[in-house]
């Protein structure tokens, strides 16, 4: 685990810090609630929580502009909240209800929002990587100046299609940022047990793709790296790789007993490296906010999450006719 931290006093405004705090806290509280609803049997199937990794997507989104695209794997709730999707629609999809983003037909792993340029939510490990490069191919073809954030994990980093995509992305100068969310464990297999070379981003060098490692528990470090990557892509220099070192506190999915790591390891990370606590301390030590002000934000977030949970329970199950809809499109979609 990289332990680089922002030691010097960061040059960052109060509003910006509060924004990160709010966004990360929303993801954490949302995920905690999702875990709770899963335990109550309201959410079924697979449910992969993002707790611990919040700084990754919040930091990356800080450098995104309107129209930029994002695509990720099945651990996707955080990405949806971070790009501004409605927590109610996400939670109602988790409960399989009509009010969900996919009308209850996609579930935790398959959600999309054309409005927010969120292209899923993909359940096959690594499949989103060429798909993300394809979004970037379309942007380059359409000359619209947008970039695509393509997220995948340390597990997906061993899929062949990732390297097929690296080759094409660099060959064609595609404006795509490959974000490797290295949370150290591909389900139950640690990076050390699955990967000979410990550095995943350096594999891009074989294709001539620039990249770097980033401390994923420090939202400011992630944001700074994201800005650099976005500038690289938007200037027409082709793809960029960010290997963001992070840590998931919960199991791979809800049914993971997590025997592959010690409780102490998880506890140590939570106590010493928690990304939300880090921003909280920056806010307090920089006198940007008082405990009371932060408590007010906590309350505000809690209300949003509770409201989402209520909506997800009250929203009806999809009508049976929905079984037979959305198999074929009648008219051409306007996706761009």
């Amino acid at each position: 685990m990289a332990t680089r931290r922002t030691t010097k006093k960061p040059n960052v405004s109060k509003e910006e810090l509060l924004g990160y705090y709010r966004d990360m806290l929303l993801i954490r509280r949302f995920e905690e609630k999702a875990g709770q609803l899963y335990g109550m049997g309201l959410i079924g199937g697979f449910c992969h929580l993002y707790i611990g990794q919040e700084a990754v997507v919040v930091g990356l989104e800080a450098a995104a502009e309107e129209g930029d695209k994002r695509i990720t794997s099945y651990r996707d709730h955080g990405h949806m909240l971070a790009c501004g999707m409605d927590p109610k629609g996400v939670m109602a999809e988790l409960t399989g209800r009509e009010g969900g983003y996919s009308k209850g037909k996609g579930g935790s792993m398959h959600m999309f929002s054309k409005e927010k340029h969120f292209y899923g939510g993909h359940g096959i490990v690594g499949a989103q990587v060429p798909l993300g490069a394809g979004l970037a191919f379309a942007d380059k073809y359409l000359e619209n100046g947008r970039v695509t954030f393509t997220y995948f994990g340390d597990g997906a980093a061993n899929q062949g299609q990732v390297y097929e995509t690296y080759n094409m992305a660099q060959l064609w100068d595609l404006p795509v940022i490959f974000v490797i969310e290295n949370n150290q464990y591909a389900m139950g297999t640690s990076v050390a047990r699955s990967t000979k070379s410990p550095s995943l981003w350096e594999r891009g060098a074989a294709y001539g793709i620039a990249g770097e490692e980033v401390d994923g528990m420090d939202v400011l470090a992630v944001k700074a790296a994201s800005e650099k990557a976005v500038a690289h892509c938007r200037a027409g220099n082709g793809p960029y790789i960010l290997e963001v070192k992070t840590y998931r506190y919960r199991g791979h999915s809800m049914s993971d007993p997590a025997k592959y790591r010690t409780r102490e390891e998880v506890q140590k990370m939570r106590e010493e490296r928690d990304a939300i606590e880090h921003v909280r301390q920056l806010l307090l030590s920089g006198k940007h906010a008082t405990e009371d002000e932060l408590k007010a934000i906590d309350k505000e977030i809690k209300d949003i999450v509770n409201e989402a949970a209520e909506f997800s329970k009250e929203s009806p199950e999809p009508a049976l006719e929905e079984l037979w809809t959305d198999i074929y499109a009648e008219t051409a979609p306007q996706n761009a």
Partner: protein
Amino acid sequence: MATEVLMPALSPTMEEGTLAKWLVKEGDTVSSGDILAEIETDKATMEFEAVDEGIVGKILVAAGTEGVKVNTPIAVLVEEGEDADAAVASAPAPAAEAPAPAPAPSAPAAAAPAAPVASATLEPDYPEGTEMKSQTVREALRDAMAEEMTRDETVYLMGEEVAEYQGAYKISQGLLDQFGAKRVVDTPITEHGFAGLAVGSAFGGLRPIVEFMTFNFAMQAIDHIINSAAKTLYMSGGQMGCPIVFRGPNGAAARVAAQHSQDYAAWYAQIPGLKVVMPYSASDAKGLMKTAIRDPNPVIFLENEILYGRSFDVPVLDDYTVPFGKARIWREGTDVTIVSFGIGMTYALEAADKLAEEGISAEVIDLRTLRPIDYDTVLASVMKTNRCVTVEEGWPVASIGNHLSSYIMTNAFDYLDAPVLNCTGKDVPMPYAANLEKHALVTTAEVIDAVKAVTYR
């Protein structure tokens, strides 16, 4: 001792070619590896090298001659002092009697003349009196893509060797010149990767045409075809469509053995979210390709290498399209319904001709699209003839024929006077040996036997 130089077969399906240019003249001394001539096949122009050494005694086929059959002597090499004319006179194998090279294994198909097939459609897809021209399936596909690329700027073609090489099977001939490298994109050999990338570009607002050099290679990419392309509209509750065409040759070609000879019709036809097209004629190839490119859904377009070079009448219309889900009745009949699609139609039509000679009247239906399937046309015909035989090159288990049999049994059981029989490829990997390959494929004789069985003749 004189040596004949024979017209070479330069591809598995080549039967004849054009002797474009001689690079040697009579009297020249040549040795092994020297380039003798340029030969134009339906796919490419290739240089033809000498295998033996000697003096070019006589050139038998002049430069520019078209339709030179494979194995025709095109020149004679003589030794020093040997008389060329005498050598020619004594040459043992005149062109016409030259033994066929490895006889094209899917014999009925490959041996069929390239002459236009008379269109016997009963419900033509174009107005009566439309001007027709003879075109190969290859040209029809090319024209369809060019017309749609002209019509819509977001349509682009991607695949291995589609641009500078002009297509491994020359389907994209000339498209690079016409549309440029931005829209005709050569990919690395990376099917899984470029199929996924193309699907992503469809999510992003483009309309890709992805050429697989053959559908055998699409197995590397099938996760993206099914999980990413076919299911996303449903998984997104209707938000995220994927307008894309996956096209390329499917099924057996000739003598390319197990890994290059599989028919995927039944595989893809099983997947909700995909549309599956498998044309037989050039006019259908053109009209269906244009429809496929315009369709807002992922379309699997299964072509056939052996059919690429066959000519058919194609209507001369500015914008000729053929709708999906509408079968074509090629031949009307009263005793039995033969249902087929793609290259299977070759056997079906040939069998119908022979059966007619024996007084059995077969109605022949070309499904043209396998998803959606035009069940109504099949049922109406079976209710009239009371008998049905299906024909396809694919394997027997879970075949399109199996599915049709079930559908007919469910919906027209009382009309049947005999069980529906399925003629399919054999339940074996494709062998290489010419005789074995011929038997592994469905044959016209098997179709005739099946028809006789269901008509109790």
